């Protein structure tokens, strides 16, 4: 029951987002041809006569009435065709996949890291509440979590790239290194991933830590923890087996939401580290009014968010037996 409402909800949201990002750019000043024909502040002025302009509009299907465009766009999406990027001059899906793989790598690794670390530290902190380790963790994690990600990224570049020269300051790979083995390639990618991922981990870990800690504190007061203790179970066992599982319940959804939001939110880190990714792509798409790409990027980001929610729901159901048989 619950699930059907959810799914209708998702579909509705996707529809809203689709129409939103179809109509919004078209209602705003500027058109996608402006960059093709030279826009303010660009280096090469290109004067466009009416005839060429009309031809270009036809070429990109922008001369049709809005309703027709919308219909085509929806139809295209149903066929899995996201259109042709005007600025990048390539299929939107190819561009998106190219960028998404980096974003997912970045978001994936950092999410996995900050989640595991945040949850563990939160649990440990709550378990020793009031103790030295708790206070230390709380203050330090709240503090480092207060750094805006882009600022942290810049500091990292200065420290690790400029001063210590330990990690590369930009890019996702050493350009055209010609890897001799898969291992070499992987390590090069990880090498480049380190700073951006660390930035993301640090700027997100505080939130998860705090959520987990609060949730854990709630759980620790529960009677079943006492029961477990009454059975003579060891403390660490109780924490792991009895407390953490329960404490995770209320925070799965929050974590999923965060993960979803990170997909688009990595743009800051992508900008600082010149890391190829969806955020940057979206930013350019907005700048150049590249309607098809903008639509595609937004759709993908929304889909990822919805997928993250969906996964969270599934995980939630898996974690909470009370929901399993509905």
């Amino acid at each position, binding site marked *: 029951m619950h699930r059907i409402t959810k799914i209708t909800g998702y579909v509705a949201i996707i529809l809203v987002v689709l129409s939103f990002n179809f109509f919004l750019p078209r209602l*705003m*000043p*500027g*058109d996608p041809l*402006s*960059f*093709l*024909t*030279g*826009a*303010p*502040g*660009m*280096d*090469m*002025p*290109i*004067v466009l006569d009416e005839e*060429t302009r009309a*031809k*270009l509009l036809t*070429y990109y299907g922008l001369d049709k009435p809005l309703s027709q465009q919308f219909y085509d766009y929806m139809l295209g999406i149903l066929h899995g065709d996201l259109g*042709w990027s005007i*600025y*990048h*001059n*390539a299929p939107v899906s190819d*561009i998106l996949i*190219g*960028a998404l793989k*980096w974003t997912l790598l970045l978001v994936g690794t950092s999410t996995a890291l900050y989640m595991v670390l945040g949850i563990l530290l939160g649990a440990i902190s709550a378990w020793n509440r009031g103790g030295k380790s708790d206070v230390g963790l709380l203050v330090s994690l709240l503090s480092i979590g207060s750094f805006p990600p882009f600022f942290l990224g810049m500091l990292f*570049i200065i420290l690790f*790239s*400029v001063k210590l*020269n330990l990690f*590369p*300051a*930009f*890019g*996702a*790979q050493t*350009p*055209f290194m010609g890897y001799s083995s898969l291992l070499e390639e992987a390590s090069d990618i990880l090498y480049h991933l380190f700073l951006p991922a660390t930035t993301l981990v640090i700027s997100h870990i505080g939130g998860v830590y705090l959520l987990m800690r609060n949730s854990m504190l709630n759980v620790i007061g529960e009677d079943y923890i006492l029961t477990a203790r009454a059975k003579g179970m060891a403390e660490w066992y109780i924490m792991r087996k009895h407390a953490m599982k329960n404490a995770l319940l209320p925070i799965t959804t929050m974590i999923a939401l965060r993960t979803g939001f990170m997909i688009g939110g990595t743009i800051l880190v992508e*900008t*600082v*580290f*010149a890391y*190829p990714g969806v955020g940057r*792509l979206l930013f*350019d798409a*907005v*700048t*150049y*009014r590249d309607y098809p790409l903008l639509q595609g990027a937004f759709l993908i980001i929304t889909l990822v968010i919805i997928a993250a929610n969906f996964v969270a729901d599934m995980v939630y159901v898996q974690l909470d037996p009370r929901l399993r048989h509905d």
Partner: protein
Amino acid sequence: DEKVVKFAGDLPGGDWGYPSPFGFYPRGPGYIRMSFGFDTLTWKDQNGTVIPWLADSWEMSDDGKTWTFHLHEGVKWHDGEPFTAKDVQFTFDYIKKHKTSFKWFQTLGYIDHVDIVDDHTVVIHLTEPFAPFLVDIAGNVPIIPEHIWKDVSDPVKFVGDKAVIGTGPFKLLKYNKEQGYYEWEANEEYFKGKPLVDKLISLSVNDPALALTTGDIDETSFWGRRAKAVSAFENKSGFGTRWGPSYWVLKVIFNCERYPTNLTAFRKAIAYGINRTELVELVVHGYGIPANTGLIHPDVTEWYNPDLPDYEHNVTKAIEILNALNFTDTDGDGIMEYPEGGDLEFNLITLDKFSREAELIKSQLAAVGIKINVKVMDMSTVDGILKEGNFFMVISGHGGIANPNILEKPDWPGGTCKNETYTALFKEQRETMDYKARKELVFKLQESIAENLPVYTLYHPKMCCVYRPEKLDTWFFTKGGVGIGIPIEMNKLVFIGEEEVRPAPSLAPAASASPGTTSAPTPIPTPTPEPEQPGFDVIFAITGLLAVAYLVLRRKNR
């Protein structure tokens, strides 16, 4: 040992599109990357002289409508196929047919048809005489292989190994769109000789200065205010620097259809009110020059009109003009009122990147009594606003000012300033094949701009490339810009070794864009790219003084 040179541009992002003639993004760096793989009939050397390239020589008919090109023999496409006149004919036919697909299509309308005389001779027929033909068409249109493109119906969507087969000095090895990486290898068989480097790599970096110090790149260039970075390399061993002009101008576009900016006198008052020297000093830290009020860059000596008024900063004069127009400050609040009443106050629209300039102009005009509200918007929005004509003043900039063609619409990308005599003058210029006569007309055009002020130009930034000489030492800026005027140190001659390809003087049938005449204009002496080092202290002292003066003035106004 392989010689690899890595470079990154100054503009953000490294992806300039697929380097095929139909895939590159329509901005300078995109065309340049494409030009590594594809050649044109003519090309420009460091001095801006038109030199033979795929064509060894050419002749123009007297009416200026027919051009005969004698092609270089033995040129081969990257795939080994021979290059012939048929390819040239095919190229022009194909590009004309797919006019919207080739991004720089503006001039294609002049081509009527192309005839083949023999394997190595083609005749290009124009619809009307076109003075800048040698640069804007012959030196711009990349020649593509017929055997590959003849079956391609949508060139924009044609990518892959075949799409980048040209005759150029480099073959594209890899292109990574999302990371903005390009890799080329030298074309060993290149008809102008083997390039100096074996591999050329173009990257996208977050901070070029940093990448240069860390050794991630061997060359980059800085522009305008960012040229400040050069000071970090100027006396550093292992780095070389080379200064050049950027054929770029920042200008105020006026709305000539809206009161009060439709009044020429009013525009002049604003021109007097703006202190361009201060702009150059403060905003670009001296890495620029006050602009030619007639748009054309002063370095382009063959077209630049040096005798134009430059509206030197003069607040009194500005106020006088305004008073004469019945704008006066009646209520003593430091802001003038319209003759009809109401504060003289309007918006100045600009892009994020020019917000510092806008702020400065705002304060300068405040001294005159004009209240400016700065509105910063994104590129496409400003474009929309300019097209709608919904503005008073816009600050915007563009390149291409080495080429008289730019004078066609001085207020581009705006469109409110229409002047029939000016348009006629421009058309006449374009069809005048005689260099001197044309030059005169171009001078007149510039005068008209400087007099009527549809736009008021602000400054031309300087450019500097910083490089590691041990990798490559041949970088230069091309006078008048590469191709149709791209101000960049990446003329492909740089990679070939200038001397080898510099034409013997006798071979040069025509210099620059002065076609058809045997009397070549005296070659312009090569301006040694002098590393200009403005005395910082002086500048800063002046700046400080100016700032103080300005503040004192402002306080007074309050």
